[in-house]
């Protein structure tokens, strides 16, 4: 993690917001296809790989970078991808596995997290602006 004014935090915010946007897209797909026979609901999963990329690997197995040229242990943030998983269980007779209530629950969670992250990014940005304008003068 860089510690300068424009630290890696923005990269984390960007990644997190991008992934949550994609998750919203997957939820929109599921809700729109709630009546399509044979449609399998999908989930986008990225929490584990994002956490690993941010915290630098396994929580129990952290390594310290003692030289700037050392390679990152956890992996690089830009390589984090959401993984699409199909829900095969709990379907209706027509083979559709969308549970609208569950999708709306996820929708609420996604928009809340997105809101929090964008708020953090906005505060970070206004902090930088404050510093650039030397305290708003």
């Amino acid at each position, binding site marked *: 993690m860089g510690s300068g004014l424009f630290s890696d935090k923005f990269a984390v915010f960007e990644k997190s917001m991008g992934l949550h946007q994609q998750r919203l897209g997957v939820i*929109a797909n599921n809700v729109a296809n709630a*009546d399509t026979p044979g449609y399998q609901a999908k989930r986008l999963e990225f929490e584990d790989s994002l956490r690993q990329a941010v915290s630098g690997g396994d929580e129990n197995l952290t390594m310290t970078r003692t030289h700037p040229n050392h390679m990152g242990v956890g992996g690089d943030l830009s390589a984090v991808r*959401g993984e699409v998983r199909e829900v095969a269980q709990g379907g209706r007779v027509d083979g559709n596995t969308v549970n609208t209530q569950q999708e709306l629950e996820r929708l609420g969670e996604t928009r809340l997290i997105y809101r929090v992250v964008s708020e953090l990014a*906005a505060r970070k940005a206004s902090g930088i602006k404050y510093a650039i304008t030397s305290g708003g003068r």
Partner: protein
Amino acid sequence: MDLFTAMKVGGSGLQAQRVRLNLTTQNLANINTTQTPEGGPYRAKRVVLGTEQGGGARSFEAALSGARGPDAEYARVREITESDAEPKQVYDPGHPDANEEGYVAMPNINRVTQMTDLMEATRNYKANTMTISAAREMALHALRIGSK
């Protein structure tokens, strides 16, 4: 998939549910219709939905990095089918369409099924409006970064 595509997917869901809602209304309105242009009593109609993968323009860079994420899946009306259930024979000798024994062929429409269909379509319609408003809200929140 970006937020605008998510809104479009929600819109496809709204469209599909509205077709379903219209057909249910049509079925309930024609529950006593004994004459149709095709002859015979009215037959219940229902919609069969399908999924359309949203291709769209895909930039080379995005494809290369895989950054575009999952594809959009639009809900589309695949076909509108007519019920092939046998008409209900109702004894009503006074009816102009009654046969020699006094029976009238009435549409075989179940009110309860139609009403539950109506409720489900309304509920799903609302769920789609919620995904659209979530996408809108998220886009507005992202716009606030750097504006203060």
